[in-house]
């Protein structure tokens, strides 16, 4: 078998070699970042250096960076605050936002996949209760960028707080927390080539952020538990590399567009979601009627290409994607959608490998009529 084409970066990115080295080095060095002695202080220095790199990635103040165990935890910490009585989330949020509170109010999205700002305005006007709005910067399945500054303005005008899940966006497009105006932002290390099991919550005013994991006083008392020093160090290195590589990442749009035009050449009826909208440069979500998601994912896997049907967060099962359902995509198309997501290792060879395998699958199923 030749080498595989890994095109599932939105699920997780391959760990960058410099990250692996830095994590290994941090593990060799050891030390508890909260310890008083020299070993502890050295670990603390490494954590704080990483904090600066993560802050720089999203244009934030390092003092507002709380390291967490995942992007999911960061979303949960921001959204499960007792100070908030009402939570409004878009219908296409990641499950860590959708499931954070059982009483969340759902804000619909347009058929194009953009959050409906008129609906958001109406929902905000419905109640005076302390409210938080949570809308993602880039959708994990379609890559479509949401109108965050506009949504933030609406929320703030109504006196609501605004949290943004930027897990898929940070490190893929320029993100400026201050310019976005959000009150908090969730990030994850492994989506940009850092280690799995590390995330960050960026807070505009950390003093108002309630703690979520209780225990010791780590992370300014906002996240208990011994810091995952090697993981945090790895995240810092990944953030540094991702920030330096933003232009190259943006150039992935060319490969992605090439992939999409080849798909359309093979199957002109294929529907590409968000093709004419601002979206992540690495993400392509498309559906081909008659070619189910599950058959595409399995068939491509058997031929050496890794893609996904949608979010990888449903225990390895193949299911109807709710994101497309929220966009009003009918089942006959929604059940035939796949996500291809490129990243820092992707070459034209990978695209070629994908297209070769996809054409085989397509011709087997659809050319025989």
């Amino acid at each position: 078998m030749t080498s595989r084409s890994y095109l599932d970066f939105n699920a997780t990115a391959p760990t960058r070699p410099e990250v692996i080295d830095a994590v290994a080095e941090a593990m060799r060095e050891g030390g508890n970042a909260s310890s008083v002695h020299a070993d502890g202080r050295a670990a603390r220095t490494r954590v704080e250096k990483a904090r600066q790199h993560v802050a720089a990635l999203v244009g934030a103040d390092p003092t507002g960076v709380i390291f967490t165990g995942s992007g999911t935890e960061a979303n949960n910490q921001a959204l499960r605050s007792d100070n908030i009585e009402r939570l409004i989330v878009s219908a296409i949020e990641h499950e860590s936002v959708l499931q954070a509170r059982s009483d969340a109010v759902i804000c619909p999205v347009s058929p194009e996949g953009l959050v409906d700002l008129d609906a958001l305005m109406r929902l905000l006007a419905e109640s005076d209760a302390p409210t938080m709005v949570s809308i993602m910067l880039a959708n994990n399945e379609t890559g479509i960028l949401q109108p965050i500054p506009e949504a933030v303005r609406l929320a703030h005008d109504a006196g609501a707080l605004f949290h943004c899940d930027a897990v898929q966006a940070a490190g893929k497009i320029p993100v400026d927390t201050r310019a976005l105006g959000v009150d908090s932002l969730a990030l994850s290390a492994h989506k940009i080539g850092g280690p799995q099991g590390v995330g960050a919550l960026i807070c505009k005013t950390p003093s108002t952020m309630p703690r979520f994991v209780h225990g010791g006083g780590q992370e300014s008392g906002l996240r208990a538990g011994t810091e995952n020093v090697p993981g945090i160090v790895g995240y810092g290195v990944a953030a540094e590399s991702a920030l330096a590589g933003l232009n190259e990442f943006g150039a992935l749009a060319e490969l992605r567009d090439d992939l999409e035009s080849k798909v359309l050449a093979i199957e002109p009826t294929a529907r590409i979601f968000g093709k004419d909208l601002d979206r992540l440069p690495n993400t392509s979500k498309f559906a081909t009627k008659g070619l189910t998601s599950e058959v595409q994912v399995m068939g491509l896997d058997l031929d050496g290409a890794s893609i996904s049907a949608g979010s990888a967060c449903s225990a390895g099962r193949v299911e109807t994607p709710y994101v497309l359902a929220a966009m009003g995509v009918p089942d006959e198309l929604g059940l035939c959608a796949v996500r291809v997501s490129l990243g820092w290792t992707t070459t034209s060879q990978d695209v070629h490998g994908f297209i070769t395998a996809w054409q085989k699958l397509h011709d087997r199923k659809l050319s025989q009529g």
Partner: protein
Amino acid sequence: MNTLVTHKAPEETRIVVAMSGGVDSSVTAALLAEQGYDVVGVTLQLYDHGAAVSKKGACCAGQDIADAGRVAETIGIPHYVLNYESRFREDVIDVFADAYVRGETPIPCVLCNQTVKFRDLMGVAQDLGADALATGHYIRRVETEDGVELHRAADETKDQSYFLFATTGEQLDYLRFPLGELTKDETRKLASRFDLPVAAKPDSQDICFVPQGRYADVVLKIRPDAAEAGDIVDLDGAVLGQHDGIIHYTIGQRRGLHLDAAEDALYVIRIDPEAKQVIVGPREALATTTVRLNNVNWLGGDVSGGAIIDCEVKVRSMRPPVAASLRLLEDGSATVELAAAEHGVAPGQACVFYDGERVLGGGWIQREKTSTEAA
């Protein structure tokens, strides 16, 4: 053994194996992988166990899926899980419940083979470019000059031909049953030799989605209005007692009638869903010699419509085949005359035709007009 797909080398032959997480399908996958085939394991997630009637202890679908995954890892093949919960509910569980509401005794395993397995999963296997779909069923597929035949399993005690009678010729062309020549003991020994993590797993019992045989609970959950009480009457229509819903009764049943002790030799003879009556009578009244079938699947080759065919038939899964003559009609129905009366022929069950070892097909047993209606 190495003739699963005759025209291709094993390593160029892709075979999808339906893996349930049980011993049989696990050994099937391991055998084919050992023979060098390009084996792809697929497990169907058919029902949500947490949501089904709460089943304590032992087996659950989640565990079976995990077991299939562990087996695939052990033998080194790719493995996928397909979520067929909604189609299984629609094509199997709902149909199962409706049959009980109609006073029938359904066989959901046949429906499952007909729909999610040999229609949907087979379609996926074909889309994946597989040359065949293999299962762990105990039944034999025999290639002859006149085409492919279905034969009973070599291990009579495990023979699953009764549940596979509805397999069409086209499906049979594509299917493979590598365990058909083996006994269950041999399969278990193979599981140990392959060091499969499920080698010591007990055989599954009864209907997979019905916990502890409590089928009525499942039916009532889906069709809550099916618990309407009614009369238990004798063959002359005299009321002997009350019942709490016809779904609790099966033709031939004797226990649980809750009639007076003097009447404990009574059996359920018929169920009348319109009148909500359970008709009971002595064992002799269960005797049936004529069985009418519909939706017949014929695997016996060319026969002229209306011809009388002498064969053996099974009217229940656990009964031995008995001599009968069969008349196939153009509309897919058939009439079976049994050489000797069978007791407890229940509508909704299958009548499966045999010529010795060979399975000639079968059909679904229809409800007879009541004898009072007929008289």
